[in-house]
């Protein structure tokens, strides 16, 4: 994920985005990190406008885009709050809005809900899914949570443990819009069973039990 973002350089191989090689970080690949990375000296709205200011968008344009995404992540009455006043879930919602406001070609999400409690995480998944259903932007999402992977994705790529290589690529045929109740459906359980097996063998390898 860090190589796709351009934050690390690959020792071999290369990353292409629309046929253009990635050489460094850029606004065309928006990223949301696992740690909270809102700028603490900027309020919610200013955080969302960070990339737009960097692009020198006119102020009226910035206000419009910020208002759109603030509403989309359900933080309309928190525009002028500083990150310290927000809960973890609200901070990550702002971070998603900040990445989307830049209109990237691809959104990179590195375990964005990893630090959240289970209930909040469930709500965040639904929120992100509904945003995706309206924006249809390509998202690369890294997670350790199998349920999260199936619920969010159209394709789940399982990686091997050290060295990290692609092990399997499983299409997720669940239809959109997805409702949280899909998590208890038989198709979902079957996918979960299969992916659990795929990952379990890798985990065992790391734990050196096999």
């Amino acid at each position: 994920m860090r190589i796709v973002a351009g934050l690390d350089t690959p020792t071999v191989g290369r990353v292409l985005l629309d046929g253009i090689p990635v050489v460094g970080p850029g606004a065309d690949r928006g990223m949301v990190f696992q740690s909270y990375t809102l700028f603490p000296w900027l309020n919610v709205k200013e955080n969302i406008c960070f990339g737009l200011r960097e692009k020198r968008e006119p102020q009226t344009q910035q206000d419009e885009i910020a208002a759109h995404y603030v509403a989309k992540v359900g933080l309309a009455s928190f525009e002028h709050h500083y990150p310290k006043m927000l809960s973890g879930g609200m901070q990550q919602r702002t971070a998603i809005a900040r990445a989307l406001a830049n209109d990237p070609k691809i959104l990179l999400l590195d375990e964005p809900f990893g630090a959240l409690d289970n209930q909040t995480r469930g709500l965040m998944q639904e929120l992100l899914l509904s945003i995706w259903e309206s924006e249809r932007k390509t998202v690369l999402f890294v997670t350790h949570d199998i349920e999260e992977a199936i619920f969010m994705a159209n394709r789940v790529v399982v990686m091997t443990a050290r060295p990290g290589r692609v092990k399997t690529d499983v299409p997720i045929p669940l239809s959109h819009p997805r409702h949280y109740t899909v998590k208890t459906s038989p198709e979902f359980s079957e996918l979960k069973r299969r992916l659990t097996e795929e990952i379990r063998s890798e985990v065992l390898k790391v734990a050196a039990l096999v």
Partner: protein
Amino acid sequence: MIPLKPVSAQRKVALGLAFFVLFVAAWSLATFGGFVSKTFLADPITMVKEGYALFAQHGFAKDVGITIWRVVGGFVLAAALAVPLGIAMGAYKPIEAFFEPFVSFARYLPASAFIPLLILWAGIGEMQKLLVIFIGSFFQIVLMVAVSVGATRRDLIEAAYTLGADARGVVRRVMLPNSSPAIAESLRLVLGWAWTYVIVAELIGASSGIGHMITDSQALLNTGQIIFGIIVIGIIGLISDFLFKWANHALFPWSLA
């Protein structure tokens, strides 16, 4: 008492004042009780009387004004040059590698030891006082600013890069705002040290200022005036500290919320 349990605002003020009262009480006991000779330590009432006389008859207000001017002048001069250099060092590693060893060395050169040399170079005028404070403050500020800028969280810098910021944008829009509260805090600390340098500079080869008054009083064995002078310095220091803290609260509400 329970560790780290906060005290109410009222009790905090009461406790803080209580120590001052206790301190003056012990001082009074030592002097009025005749345990310490008046030649060595004046009693509190004499001290206050001498202090009043200083302002009323000896134009002490002018000395206080000159001392404040020297501290502020030397400190502002040092900060104006040291803060940008510190930022450049904190942000760009080659610049840091170039300056850091020298600055670390220069930081340990005692400002007071430069006084004889500075008198030789700059005479005993204002320039010499300003230079003492400058030498005492400059290297400290450079290092402290460089450390706080360099300590900017990596993930914030990376987030800025993924939002399209370039190297200059990262310095200007992430490293600077992120470290400004720490920079302000360093300035507050160094200003406190600048106060000790100015008095030392005024003790040697000065014809005005609080330090000069203290040397004069020493010649006359007037301990009341000496203590009053020291207390005035303490009070001015307390006021400047308070102003700095207040300004930090007003400028960086986000760091405290």
